[in-house]
């Protein structure tokens, strides 16, 4: 099921961080990614949260571009 509406309704299947935890760890996650380190292993639950929360996703994309 790839329907965007269904994705928005059901959210990520994998366990995810919530917004406050995402904000706490976003800088670490982005710098690990920019260094080519295993960010998803170091910060589990971040990637699913970024799939499920459009606002945090936008902030992640901006931070990655700005810090890169």
């Amino acid at each position, binding site marked *: 099921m790839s329907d965007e509406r269904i994705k928005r*309704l059901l959210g990520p299947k994998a366990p995810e961080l919530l917004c*406050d935890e995402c*904000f706490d760890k976003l800088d670490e996650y982005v710098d690990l990614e920019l260094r080519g380190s295993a960010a998803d292993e170091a910060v589990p639950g971040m990637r699913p949260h970024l799939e499920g929360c459009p606002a945090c996703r936008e902030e992640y994309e901006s931070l990655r571009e700005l*810090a890169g």
Partner: protein
Amino acid sequence: MTAVRGATFAPRMPLTASSSTQAWLDGLAVGAGGRDQAIEALHALLLRAARFEVSRRRAGLSHVRGERLEDVANQAADDALVAVLAKLHTFRGASRFTTWAYKFALLEAGVRLRRRAWQEREVVLDSDSWTRLAEPARGGPESHAERAELLHAVSDSIGADLTPHQRQVLVSLAVDGVPIDVLVERLGTTRGALYKTLHDARKKLRAALTERGFDV
């Protein structure tokens, strides 16, 4: 290098986006000489991040005048500066200082810009749009039986399994497309609390759908 009473001090370089984490921490330390200049440099760094966010979203804000957007960037940088200084003691060094500081300005700017973009739009808090989820999209394919069946089941579950608050939050965010920061403002809550409600509602939906035999 300048020698003063036997001690040797390196002249402090102005802090910039490419300064090291240690240089920022030294400059911002309470009691550090030149702390005011370090705070000024931090504000400039945060303003740069806020303007960056404004420029990324400018296309969706064509109805807002340029000087208003500059005000948004300045307010975001001011509030981010207060937040960064208040939380400086929590910085763990898991990232560069500049990456850590930027996220405060991006958050402040992002929240303001999402709200500004929706300023003229009505938010229907008790929307019944979920009851029409399974209706075929106008102009879209009408023969995706599997998807239609799933959407019927989702719609049933929204009506039967969620609390009124969970339904309101899920429908606003995931069906009507209201940005989370706009809903936060209308409901007088926080993004964290609202997302937790969304998360719990989604979990209930998934469980109900799985129970009915859907592979979701």
